[in-house]
């Protein structure tokens, strides 16, 4: 295995494009090193992105959004009070990943590119309307986060392409987001169902909403019917009931040791209700 420490994303992309064997990018390493050790993946070229300028920074963009480097860890996101104030749902999703030790290294982009349908940080990013910058041999482009996952363990990235940054849009006024997951215990487990809700209020009524489910389909899924169920409402009981039904109806889960199809389908509705209430309260100014 060759270990590379390129100084730019263009150089990283060029290394990957020219490589003839198995290539992996390394940021936090909490998935790559596990796969390496288990023999699931034996890269010929390992490209460490941490020597590239800016990969550890979080900065406000000119329009009031956020630009987050690809090696920023979950713990660093959680320690950024201004970011947490803007996008609590995005940060709480990432902070659910792994232990204290894993939080010290694990990254948003790693969680995304690992391709798990149960990735805890991805629904929140999709609900927020986050984009990633994809750098490849023919330049860079912005891609919505939701277009990256392509199935369990798979991404839409092509050979020679690397994600070089995450952009969160400006939070704006009267907005709130939240992420909840179900696991059979309180810590250190993989989501059986995850749900993120991001919404904006006009007075007491919901003007915009996005509802996103994780772990109930081969990829994260956006559920426009669930958003429709609450837009124009004050999140009254009837709206919450419609939201739950729409969320459950969108589920195409698997049966496994963590949960059955019926259980996951039902819990998706329950989590959608609860996450919507938290997002609504946050949009109203709750901490």
């Amino acid at each position, binding site marked *: 295995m060759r270990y590379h420490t390129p100084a730019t994303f263009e150089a990283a992309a060029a290394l990957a494009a020219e490589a003839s064997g198995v290539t992996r990018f390394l940021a936090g390493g909490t998935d790559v090193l596990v796969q390496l050790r288990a023999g699931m993946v034996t890269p010929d070229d390992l490209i460490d992105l941490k020597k590239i300028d800016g990969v550890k920074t979080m900065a406000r963009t000119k329009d009031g959004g956020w630009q987050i480097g690809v090696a920023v860890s979950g713990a660093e996101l959680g320690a950024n009070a201004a970011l947490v104030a803007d996008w609590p749902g995005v940060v709480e999703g990432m902070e659910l990943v792994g232990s204290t030790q*894993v939080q010290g290294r694990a990254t948003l982009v790693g969680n995304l590119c690992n391709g798990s349908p149960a990735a805890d940080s991805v629904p929140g990013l999709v609900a927020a309307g986050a984009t990633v910058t994809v750098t490849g041999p023919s330049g860079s482009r912005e891609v919505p986060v939701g277009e990256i996952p392509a199935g369990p363990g798979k991404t839409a990235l092509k050979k020679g392409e690397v994600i070089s940054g995450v952009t969160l849009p400006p939070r704006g006024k009267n907005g709130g987001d939240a992420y909840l997951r179900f696991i059979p215990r309180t810590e250190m487990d993989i989501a059986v169902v995850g749900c993120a809700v991001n919404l904006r209020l006009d007075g007491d009524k919901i003007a915009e909403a996005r509802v996103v489910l994780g772990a109930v389909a081969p990829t994260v899924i956006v559920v426009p019917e669930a958003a429709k169920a609450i837009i124009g409402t004050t999140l009254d009981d009837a709206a919450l009931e419609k939201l739950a039904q729409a969320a459950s109806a969108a589920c195409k889960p698997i049966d496994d040791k963590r949960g059955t199809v019926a259980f996951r389908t039902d819990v998706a509705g329950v989590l959608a209700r609860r996450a919507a209430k938290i997002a609504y309260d946050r949009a109203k100014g709750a901490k």
Partner: protein
Amino acid sequence: MSKIHVTTKVNGDDVEFLADPRESLLDCLRDKLDLTGAKEGCGTGDCGACSVSLDGTLVCSCLVLGVEAQGKTIETVEGMAQDGDLHPLQRKFIEHAALQCGFCTPGILVAAKNLLERNPDPTETEIRYWLAGNLCRCTGYDKIVRAVQDAAAEMRGAA
């Protein structure tokens, strides 16, 4: 396979070693630097027995490559005792019998020290969540939590 020359600082000492890029920091600490305090339990970041501090951040050294340690500052359990005196956490672990087989203990001591550096007065819940990635199959955790609380109290009093 060409090896890479790594220079790093461990427990205040400048050290260097040659690492195959596939080798974990844990293997480098144990096999090249003879620092066998950090243990390999799972090798996949689940158990925390290999916990070390890397530039002040608590990490599983099995999930860090040795070559990534270049230019960093690492602290392991071997650096906790000063001039032959045990760290308060180490003394309190003995007093409270917060270990039985001891395999998880170096990782838990390093993790607890990292917690107390950030939060000198953690609640029981904060301690339990912070140490959720450090598995112990002997003690049931209760004595560990008491030992950390007692050490924290002593360290606050001494400060």
